């Protein structure tokens, strides 16, 4: 109980420190223009990496399933055709769910 509490406190404080340090640094530092331009590129790169690992890996291994990539692909095509965001999310989930229901993992 005490160990768990200390561990959770460490994770919570450490995570907050990571978050707040980026935010406060942004307010304090005067960044050179090239670096300022690079930050949104870096953030987008991190987000796409997060998306790609969520789609193509499971628990630290590559996963070659059908349902999840197919669902995301349907969502991506709809997003590219400028469908409303809610439609993208629901269509992706529905595609993956239906494929799984049909027996494809």
């Amino acid at each position, binding site marked *: *109980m005490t*160990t*768990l509490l200390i*561990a*959770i*406190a*460490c*994770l*919570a404080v*450490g*995570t*907050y420190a*990571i*978050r*707040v*340090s*980026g*935010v*406060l*640094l*942004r307010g304090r530092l005067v960044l050179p223009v090239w670096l300022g*331009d690079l*930050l*949104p*590129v*870096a*953030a*987008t*790169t*991190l987000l*796409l*990496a*997060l*998306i*790609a*690992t*969520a*789609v193509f890996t499971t628990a*630290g*291994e*590559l996963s070659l399933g059908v349902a*999840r990539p197919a*669902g*995301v692909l*349907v*969502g*991506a095509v709809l*997003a*590219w055709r400028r469908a*409303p*965001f*809610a439609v993208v*999310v*629901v269509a*992706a*989930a529905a*595609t*993956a*769910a239906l494929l*799984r229901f049909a027996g494809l993992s």
Partner: protein
Amino acid sequence: MRTAYRTRLVGAVDRDLIRDTLALGAASAVVGLSYGAISVAQGMPAWVPIVMSLAVFAGGSQFLAVSLFSAGNPVAAVLGGLLVNVRHLPFGLAIGGAIGDTTAARLIGSHVLIDENTAFTLAQDRPERRRHAYWLVGGALFVLWNLGTVAGVLLGGVVGDPDRFGLDAAFPAGMLALVLPSLRDRTTRISAVTGAVIAVAATPFLPAGLPVLVALLGVAAGRIAGAGRTTDVSRTSGAAQTSDIDTTAGTDEVAAAGKGATR
């Protein structure tokens, strides 16, 4: 008349933002539900997932930490969880300006800095819309993630596998929809796609959290590829601003220029 049109436009945009937030928030609540249920099923006391959702509020690290706690390795849970969360530092650097001008706003707002509001904020073109997106998405997902967690703890084994409902596809698809407009910029596209390939390829070999961080190597690739075409890139993004609203990565400079152009 022009002012009235602008007001109506802003109102419509905000309604869209609320609807989009609720779409992602509903999915987030269901994942929170499964987080609460899985934690209890792995032998955690009820307070563990509830306190973590409130105090840590970072889903990936919470799932990892609970599985390492139940494996009897709290040190690995803390270190692994922090490694998974390191990406929030560059997120804060990139969009920290959208949170607010006061120190109080920044201190409170930092707690709700997550992947989802980073993506939503990057997708907005004007400062006030960036601020709305940050707080609306961060606040709504904080509330819904925590409600989901509590419900999951209470329901326990009744909650099934959320993948059955395709939620594992819903999140990447939603995030991709938000990132897509930024990818029209060539440098960003090369950086992000290279980074994504690196991250997936590195996943079997690196501990959780690191693959996403090494994706930043892709930024170097984007810079090298974009170096010879600087004028091209700036011309493209300039055209995108005037013809089409949500197309640029939305740096503050771009946002300011866009604001100037509409007035």
